[in-house]
Structures are given as structure tokens and as C-alpha cells.
């Protein structure tokens, strides 16, 4: 027994035994995969344990590399900065005029809101979390964040930022969680066109675009239309921006319109997210 223990700890056993071990582990992999296909909750359960161990390291690495990443991004942006400056100066002038008009509208809005009670969005409580890791492969698009069950984060809570919808919480551990992005191939979000209120399902593609599915061919739509969450399904609150339509095709062999959406959020640059903690349908 002592001899076997010594061999295992020194990681050296005869070659004949290696093949037996390999065979056993191959069978174990098949068993694990079969269990996983039958019991879907095995993966999240194991993940929360691994997250607790790895996430502090992820947090440390993110903290260390963030200054470098920011510097590189700034250098990349420098090339187009003069042109951007000219465009921004023009925009500032236009926005100054708009601002005066909007301030007037805001005052009017505040007065009306006081008359009607609180606004829809003020009902939501949000929690700020830092993105500490990313997992973007063909099969899976997710972020790891530094808030977990200790911060009242629960599975299926919606995750947003100032630009729009990011995804939902799929795994939680005590101090960390995993967010499934709306670009994940297995992600579905009930959504609608902001102006026409026509509903459909936003599906992830695994890439940087989304698909707006189940929209009838008779529905009139244009590129640039804004897509927001419809609130159907009870996971995501209504009215959060998901993205903009950038390609519409009516293909003969498809039942519905083939609509491509550009997400409102740039998933490559997200460092912080907001979790809606009190939404219930």
C-alpha cells in the first residue's frame, strides 16, 4: 500500500499500468458525459466549487493586467483620435442645443412622474459587479463576476450595463457567479421591436451578432430598428435594449424572417456589469 502511494505521489508507475489507467479514465469520461446529459445540474454544481478556488486568482490576474490592457486600448485608439475629435466637437455643439431642449422636457417629465407615481425603472435594485474572467468559445459565451450568493445574487437574475442587456446569471458560488451572455449559442431572450412592438426571440450565435427569430415574414421592419426585451418568459424585465437590426432577409426556404442584430453592448470591452436583484415577473 505504502509502495502504491509512493508511486502515485511521485507520479511514476510502469507503462503497462498506464494503459489500464487510461482505459479506466476513458470509461470515467464517458460515464461523466452520460450523467451530464441526463442530469444537467452536475456541471453548475461542480463549477461553483471550481469557481471558489480559481476566481480569487482570476481576480488577481485581472487586477494586474487591467492597466496594460487599458494602455494598449488607448494606444490603438490614438490613431483615429484627431478625426474623432472633429466629429465629437460637432456633436457637442448639436448636443448643447439638444440639452437645453431636454432639460425642459426633463422638468416636464419629473412633474408628470410625480403625478403618476414612480417610474418603471426606479423599481429595480441593481448591484454592481466586476468582470473577472471571460469564456468565449464556439459553444459557450460567458463572463465570471466577483459577486455571488453572499451578495444576494441568484440564478436567472438579469445582467445589464449602461448600453443594454448582457445576459443572465447561470451559476453562483459564495463570492462569484457566471453570466451567460446573450451571444451564447444556447441563449434565448424574448424581445420585441421598440416601435412596432412586434415580438420574437433573440438567439445567440456564438459570435458577435444575434439572431431575431420567430418574426413573421409579413412584419415590416427596417435596418436600424431598436430591439428591446419584451418581458415575456419572466426572466428579463421589459424594455431593456438588446441591439439594433442590421440585416433583414426574406428567404424562400425559411418560415420566418432572417434578421441579424448587432448587440447594444460591446462584449469585448465590458469591465463592470449591473445585476438586477429584485425583478420578479
Amino acid at each position, binding site marked *: 500500500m505504502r509502495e502504491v502511494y509512493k508511486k502515485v*505521489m*511521485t*507520479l*511514476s*508507475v510502469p*507503462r503497462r*499500468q*498506464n494503459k489500464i*489507467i*487510461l482505459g479506466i*479514465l*476513458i470509461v*470515467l*469520461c*464517458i*460515464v*461523466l*458525459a452520460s*450523467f*451530464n*446529459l441526463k442530469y444537467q445540474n*452536475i*456541471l453548475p454544481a*461542480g*463549477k461553483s*466549487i*471550481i*469557481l471558489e*478556488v*480559481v476566481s480569487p*486568482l*482570476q481576480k*488577481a*490576474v*485581472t487586477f494586474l*493586467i487591467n492597466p496594460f*490592457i487599458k494602455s*494598449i486600448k488607448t494606444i490603438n485608439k490614438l490613431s483615429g483620435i484627431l478625426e474623432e475629435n472633429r466629429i465629437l466637437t460637432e456633436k457637442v455643439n448639436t448636443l448643447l442645443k439638444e440639452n437645453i431642449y431636454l432639460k425642459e422636457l426633463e422638468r416636464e417629465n419629473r412633474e408628470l412622474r410625480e403625478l403618476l407615481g414612480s417610474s418603471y425603472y426606479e423599481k429595480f435594485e441593481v448591484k454592481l459587479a466586476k468582470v*473577472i*474572467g*471571460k*469564456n*468565449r*468559445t*464556439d*459553444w*459557450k459565451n460567458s463572463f*465570471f463576476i466577483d459577486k455571488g450568493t453572499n451578495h444576494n445574487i441568484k440564478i436567472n437574475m438579469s445582467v445589464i450595463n449602461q448600453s443594454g442587456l448582457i445576459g443572465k446569471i447561470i451559476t453562483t458560488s459564495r463570492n462569484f457567479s457566471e453570466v451567460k451572455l446573450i451571444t451564447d*449559442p*444556447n441563449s434565448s431572450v424574448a424581445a420585441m421591436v421598440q416601435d412596432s412592438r412586434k415580438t420574437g426571440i433573440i438567439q445567440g*450565435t*456564438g*459570435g458577435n451578432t444575434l439572431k431575431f427569430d420567430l418574426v413573421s415574414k409579413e412584419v415590416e421592419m427596417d435596418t436600424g430598428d431598436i430591439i428591446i426585451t419584451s418581458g415575456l418568459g419572466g426572466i428579463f424585465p421589459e424594455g431593456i435594449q438588446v441591439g439594433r437590426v442590421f440585416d433583414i432577409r426574406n428567404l424562400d426556404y425559411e418560415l420566418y424572417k432572417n434578421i441579424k442584430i448587432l448587440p447594444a453592448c460591446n462584449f469585448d470591452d465590458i469591465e463592470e456589469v449591473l445585476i438586477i436583484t429584485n425583478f420578479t415577473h
Partner: protein
Amino acid sequence: MKKFFFSLFLLLITLAIQSTITNYILVGGIQLNLILVIVISTSLIFGEFFAIIFGFFAGICSDFLFGHILGLFAFVNMISAFISLKVKRFFTQEHYIVPAIVMIIVTEIWVFLTYIISFSLGGEVIQGNLINKIIYQPLINGLVMLIIHPMIKKIGSLLK
């Protein structure tokens, strides 16, 4: 015992780096697979038994953190680690470029196996990504292997 703790530490650091830094190291839109690089590198240094065990555990951890089917990466990483030693036997001379060549060959096998298994279990295969993966993944992994392998070899020789 030293080897065991070194492997555990290396695995944890690699998992943390894989989900942070490697997101910014993209060639042709393809991310470096640092976990596979570490698995193959340590396998070439520590031998067959280590290759099987470390490949399996690194794969299981990847399955939990990044995977969609439990056991997929465990199987593929373990087989890749095992094959890497068989591939290495074709090279009679010890040359610093050999591990990189082994890495390139094994990565092609890894990509092929991952996609075949994933596809047969109902996963979607994005054609453009697959082609990019076949071309770029072995190149990035091979290149990083050139840098990392001598460092791990040095630490490995201290542990032996």
C-alpha cells in the same frame, strides 16, 4: 510530492490566465489554448503516467469552467497528452523546436476530436471558426510552446 503540488499550482494559474489574459491574445479570432500547452509541455517532461492523470484533471477543470459537456475536455486533453508522447518518439534528436512541432500535431488532433465529439453530441459547428481553428490554433499553441516549454523544463529538472 513536489511534483504534485507544482502541477496543482500550475493548473490553477493556467485556468486563471486562460479566462483572463488569453482573451486578449487572438490570432485570426482564435484564442490561445494555454491549458493544452501546459498539459503537453508537462507531459513531455514528466512522462506517460503524469500525462494521463494531469491531462484528465486539467480537462475536468476546463469542463467545469469553460465546457458544455462534462468529460469532453477531460477525454480530449488526456488523449492529446498520451498521443504527444507517441508523437515525440518519432523525433530521434533532442531539439528545442521538437516540442513545438509535437504541439502543432497534437493541437490538430485536439481540434479534430473536440469538434467531432461536440458535433456528434448535438453541438453546432460554425464553419468559419472551424477553419480558423484548424489553421491558427496549432500555430499559436506551437509558438507559445516554444516560449513556455523551456521554462517548465527548467522547473521540472529542479523537481526531479
